[in-house]
């Protein structure tokens, strides 16, 4: 398959270490945030269903509070 793709295109595809715009936005957003809860939620923003991932993280944050001993 790769043999038939022109070399220029292969080069662009395989040697591009550039981060996606999506990741750049998230990095920039996270860098401007100081609240640790917001940071954790942004870090959890990933995968095919980011809302579910963030919900799981929020769930984990709330359970941590519930289970905190001190």
């Amino acid at each position: 398959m790769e043999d038939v793709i022109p070399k220029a295109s292969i080069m662009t595809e395989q040697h591009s270490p550039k981060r996606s715009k999506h990741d750049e936005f998230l990095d920039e957003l996270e860098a401007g945030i100081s609240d640790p809860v917001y940071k954790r939620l942004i870090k959890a923003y990933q995968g095919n269903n980011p809302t579910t991932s963030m919900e799981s993280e929020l769930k984990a944050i709330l359970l941590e509070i519930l289970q905190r001993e001190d």
Partner: protein
Amino acid sequence: MKIRSVTVCGIRGFSEERTLHFDDRLTLIAAPNSYGKTSISEAFELLLYGVTSKVESATFSKEEYKGSYRNRHLTQMSPAFVEATFLDAGSEIQLRVEIAADDSFRKFVNGAEVPQWPFAHRMVSATKPFILQHALKYLLLVGPDERFKGFARLLGLVDLDRIQTNVVSLCTKPEAAIPQEVQKLVNDVKALEARLEARPALSAIAKFLKKGSKTLKQIYQAVALECTQRVPSGTPKESVLLQLLKIREEAVGKIFKERLILETYSETETTLSNADEQFLLSVITDPFIEKYVKLIALGLVQRVLDKARFFGLGLKFLKETEGLCPFCGQTVSEPLGVHIKQTHESIEAERKLYAGLEKEQADFLQSLTDLSTRIETYHKRQQTKVADFLEVEKSIPKLKPIFSPKYDTHWAAVQKAFDELRPAKASLDTAYTVCINALDKVKISIAETKEDAVFVRTLGECLTSCIAEARQLRKMVSDHATPVSEADAILKHELDILAGTEDIAVLIDLLEHRKEIEKKFQIEDVLGGLKGFRKVVDQFVGNKMLNAVSSELTADVMEWYSQIRTTGDPDVHFSGFDLERTAKGDLKARRVQIKATSYGKDLISAASSLSESKLNALGLCVSIATNLKGETPFGFLMIDDPIQSWDAEHEIQFIDVIRKLLELGKQVILLSHNRKWIDQVRSGCRSINGCFYEITGYSVTGPHIAERPWASWRQRLNEVDAILKDKNADNVKLQQAEEEIRIVVALLSVDLYRKRLRIEKSPHDINSDKARKILVECGVDTGLIDRITQTFSTTDDAHHAPFDYAVHRQRIQLYAGWANELAQLVGG
């Protein structure tokens, strides 16, 4: 990437195969409405994106469009494909997409199937190279949210749109993320707060509690003060709670001592019970029964084993008594001694044969012991869950009046729990006893070597039955736990009323649940903080969009807009983009504003104030500006019917826009229903020598596409003559004349071919060899053919001059003469 050619078959209006070649600068396609013009741009959209923008921007169900890409006249097996050749970084690349009857797509690059295009990552944030009328209206004449989405798509900020949408979804509806146990804690503390608010004597505490987490210290200072007033003076601080509990217990105990406790199964209990059930149900299997049945053989050889043990013991003693019988003391003669030893050896050898069987018996007995322990633990776990609660049933005569008549519903729930749990527990206890009995029978059968498979099968049935009873009980406990717990809270409350200990009860709960109260505050802080999180994301997204539309886009759009606006236009114009703000000045993240002015005065709503033709112009300018901005793998721009609702003056202005796009290096493919305007574009871009197609008709097979000359050979010859007559014509002009002659020769050749042999041929790819062949077939004099084909010697097949090209006026004059000779033949 620029487009060289496209072949469309079985897609939208194209039932049969059609191929179009594109000029690397400008290609024009003219067709009346509904003649399949848009099908061409949609074929490219499908090829590159797998979806047309019409379907993508559908606000209603996309289901309506399902199956609409394939031409309706195709059979299931007929091919539907778009195949295009692009020029990418000097190499040709052929992309092909096939659409099956179920709407699934297969992609191919240079004939090999691929999962995605090799430049897919560059397409993600690049603006689509299509400017379509319905897309323009979608961008401007829609609600703010849809407009935001449209701009996000155009500006490559789709990810920003997604991030904001997902964060809003979490922040506005966080309920799905609140675990049950967290919600329970919040509800319990809220119930305590409600009780506190109902106690006027404790209003100081309630006041602080309302203020939230920051006042926790003051809350407990107030609690301590109230407690001190209710315990004997001199009570040490650490004994206050104990003292309060004692006071309350004594007062309440005079009325009723018990509580209604029926707790639901904890996660650990559930896990343990599930594991036990899994184990118990997996024990009695066919291999287990086989092992058990095999032990019957042990009974048959038991005499041998006993004898071996007897001989073993006898020999041990014989060694100690040396020549005397260890049992009666008589002398054992040597032959007798030898006989005893030999007999023992033979029996010992036989015993070894059955040693494995003995081990199996031991293992089997151990597994029965394990089973017994497990069933006992399992039963105890279920039984103790309800035992205390059922004990209270004896006190119904005392308990009922506390509930009735005020809390009859709760009492009914308690009564129902008693009525259902009592027999359920009894059934479980019976099933457990039966189970243990069955287990004992199996053990006894082994001990008595009276194994019978029926015993084990019965044990299996008993275990299944016991588990079914236990599951029934577990379900009942889960069903009744909440109503019983609510009834218990009422009982506690009513007892405190009767005993006059309500304030003390609230103080006790405040002291005992300080951690829970603190956690509830923290939970509320996190959930309340989601509003702040949303605001942060809103401002981030708003600023990004503002930056994109106002700082970067506005100037570019204004520049293009000024190209289209005419001097006679009323001074009511687009004046820029902005984002709406709240009264406090915060950005409204998803509200892109289109600003307009009327003779220097800002208008309230640009969308409603600007005429359709101006909105159309604005939409075009936005699309053009965004297409020229940012990284894109595409060097072409397909513009579909841009001049709708425009007057003649604006139409002419737009030709300048096309010229500017060409100057910027864009390959432009322009489609229009307006043949007259397309002719004006050709005339305005006369020097471009692009491709021109006309769709002349439409039938069931698809559009009838005819390639037309950019300019007639007569116009071109006249232009050549004019250049040659101009003594001041520079080298650039002369080179242009020579190139025109080559085009004239190609046009004349295909014209002659059509006239003499009635064969249509495209002039697009005519070179020296092809021209010679055509002219020979048309019976042209060989001398003229030789002269005519010489005109190609100074241009290559790709219509470009070779590196060593040099302008020569006399040579061009000669070529022009030969071309005029050919023109005479064609009918000039």
